[in-house]
């Protein structure tokens, strides 16, 4: 008899514990879900976008920052002036800023942070941001001059990246585990594999955020992502992993579905160092064999915008060059015949994200339609980085280049894809130093036309930022000018 009493007790307990699972949201608490967990929490020492998605603007701030609309704005620097000769910039720093551990922020700290980020052998993932910096000089407690080896029109923008945020000499080394910044939220705890919790900082210099607690929960499984949202376990999924689930969420008025832009140009990169991809006709044939709209419909469920070059459609300098390599299977076959490559067999290396794996299956089928024997090979990121990206052992690969304003990669001689087009190279070189906005616009147009014309890569689509959140939430970013979840302006409305 005892046994059955035990069974009954257990069942009652089970019912009791499972009942209150979707608690009413508290007005100052936000649970925000992310697909990937960061390896550590120091934005200045790693490439993982997930680091910035937790810490950028929330915990760490730079001298400048990027706003939701992509504009560069003052942050820990209140203003700056560029010298006449374009070879130095002077920054006035904000007064009364302290780190979460109480250490003050000043010009010495700023110099330390910049020197640390740009040092030889530093773990910084974006050394090109600091490439033009000659040295950093402290002019006074709150004044700093950055001297440049060449004009760099993008300096205020470069300093707004998560890789250039301000860290204190006393806490910098421990930031990977216990990040200490100057932002409106301070780090509370990190339960690995589960979530990072931030709480409001009482010592913040600026306007205090409405939220008191923000939890970043890691939900790697796409099915759980949808279920967790529907069950109310999480309030927001700013980068929702499964576009196929959107119809259900859009039909439900409890949720806001927002399809915004990112800086992620998704391309089918072509290894033009290798025959027969060094033949422009083969590259053009590959581009013409791809039906971008079918790829977008099949892989992204229609949520993405097609691109014809490596510049996002929301960029002021964007021009539509998708027609240059429009879908034309007969043209593709004719080009292949002209190039005399019969029985061309190619392998498409596919890194883990769903956009790559899904697009890959569709593109392989489209290439087979024009007589190219295409196969796919799924790879993990580690192998992709070592074999494809550094080893350049690949035919084709699909990846989204998520860094903002990154056309410069087409000028790198040792990059995993490369162009021989001299006009393109010259335009890119000129863009590097050109300060005049109109001239930059013209150069960017040339760049896009030449990229499409040379068919450096097959340009597929701009990765969308699919955000889904509780309809009562306001203030989440619609677009992603950089990978970040700035929650400082988020609040619950009734």
């Amino acid at each position, binding site marked *: 008899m005892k046994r059955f009493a035990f069974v009954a007790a257990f069942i009652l307990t089970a019912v009791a514990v499972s009942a209150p699972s979707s608690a009413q949201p508290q007005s100052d608490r936000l649970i925000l879900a992310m697909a990937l967990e960061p390896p550590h929490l120091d934005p200045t020492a790693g490439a993982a976008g997930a680091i910035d998605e937790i810490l950028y603007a929330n915990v760490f701030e730079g001298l400048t920052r990027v706003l939701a609309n992509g504009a560069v704005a003052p942050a820990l620097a209140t203003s700056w002036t560029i010298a006449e000769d374009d070879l130095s910039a002077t920054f006035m720093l904000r007064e009364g800023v302290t780190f979460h551990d109480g250490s003050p922020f000043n010009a010495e700290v700023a110099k330390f942070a910049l020197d640390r980020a740009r040092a030889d052998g530093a773990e910084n993932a974006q050394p090109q941001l600091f490439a033009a910096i000659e040295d950093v000089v402290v002019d006074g407690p709150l004044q700093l001059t950055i001297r440049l080896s060449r004009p760099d029109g993008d300096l205020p923008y470069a300093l707004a990246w998560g890789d250039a945020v301000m860290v204190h000499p006393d806490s910098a080394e421990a930031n990977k585990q216990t990040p200490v910044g100057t932002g409106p939220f301070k780090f509370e705890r990190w339960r690995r594999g589960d979530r990072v919790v931030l709480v409001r900082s009482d010592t913040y210099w600026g306007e205090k955020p409405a939220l008191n607690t923000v939890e970043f929960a890691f939900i790697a499984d*796409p099915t759980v992502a949808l279920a967790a949202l529907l069950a109310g376990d999480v309030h927001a999924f700013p980068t929702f992993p499964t576009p*196929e*689930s959107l119809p259900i969420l859009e039909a439900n008025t409890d949720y806001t579905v927002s399809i915004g832009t990112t800086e992620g140009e998704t391309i089918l990169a072509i290894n033009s160092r290798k025959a027969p991809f060094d033949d422009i006709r083969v590259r053009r044939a590959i581009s013409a064999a791809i039906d971008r709209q*079918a790829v977008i419909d*099949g892989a992204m469920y229609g949520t993405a915008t097609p691109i014809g070059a490596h510049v996002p459609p929301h960029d002021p300098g964007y021009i539509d060059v998708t027609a240059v390599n429009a879908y034309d299977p007969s043209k593709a076959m004719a080009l292949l015949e002209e190039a005399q490559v019969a029985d061309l067999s190619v392998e498409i290396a596919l890194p883990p994200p769903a956009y790559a794996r899904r697009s*890959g299956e569709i593109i392989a089928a489209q290439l*087979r*339609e024009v007589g190219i024997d295409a196969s796919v090979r*799924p790879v993990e990121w580690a192998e992709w980085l070592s074999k494809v990206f550094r080893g350049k052992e690949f035919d084709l690969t699909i990846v989204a280049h998520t860094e903002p304003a990154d056309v410069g990669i087409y000028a790198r001689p040792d990059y995993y894809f490369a162009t021989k087009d001299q006009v393109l190279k010259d335009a890119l070189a000129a863009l590097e130093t050109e300060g005049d906005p109109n001239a930059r616009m013209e150069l960017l147009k040339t760049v896009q036309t030449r990229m499409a014309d040379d068919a450096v890569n097959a340009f597929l689509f701009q990765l969308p930022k699919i955000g889904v959140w509780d309809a009562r939430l306001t203030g989440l970013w619609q677009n992603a000018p950089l990978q970040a979840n700035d929650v400082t302006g988020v609040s619950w409305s009734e």
Partner: protein
Amino acid sequence: MRLWWSALVLAVLLIGALVAAFWTPHAIDGVAIANRFASPSRQFPLGTDQYGRDTLSMLMAGGATSLGVAAAATIIGVGAGSVLGLMGVAFGGLGDGAVMRISDVVFAFPALIVAALLATAFGPGSINAVIAIGIFNIPVFARLSAASARRYFQLEFADAARLAGKSEVRIAAEHVAPNIAPIIATQAATQFAVAILAEAGLSYVGLGAQPPQVSWGRMLAESQTLVPIAPQLAIWPGIAITISVFAVTAFGETLRVRLDPRRTFEA
């Protein structure tokens, strides 16, 4: 009765898989986005999937992989395991002890962990799934064949064979092996069922079949985010796995009863 229907289902599954290795009603390497999520029709009896491919053809091709991997892994287990177990007993003493100890060691590695290690070293794939499940099957058959073989080596016919000058290895091959074959066969059916489930689990977590290869586990994994809009895509492979495992196990159970009436322990 049970023998007949389970054998029939099993035959249909195996023939379907065998056919699919060479031919499917529709091509499975083409995509037709415009025709995705189609309802069942005369042309597509089970409808189409998220890429507009015929679900029936996908199920058949998936069965070829899933059942093929499971069968290969079982054969590895039966082959290597029975030989090891028999030889261990034939050589007796140290040989027996060594085989049993190694079996204990290997048995502590679940197939999933072996697959994870293989995938880390060589990348995931069906071959690695076969090896992982096969490795895990070896100690099962080694233990079983040794346990069943021991008493036969002590029976009169073994002594007679020894007097006739036959070696222990020959006795094992000529006299013991035929006697333990029924037990091995019934266990093979059980392990085949286990292997089907293992393959599904491995492919589901990404350690088994890789695109463009289709398998039931991969179909489950790929369709799970589609459950709210196209539940049939997740339900079909689930049913295929369940029916296969059910039929194989039922067949094995019937065999067990028929071939070895003394073993009533589980019947």
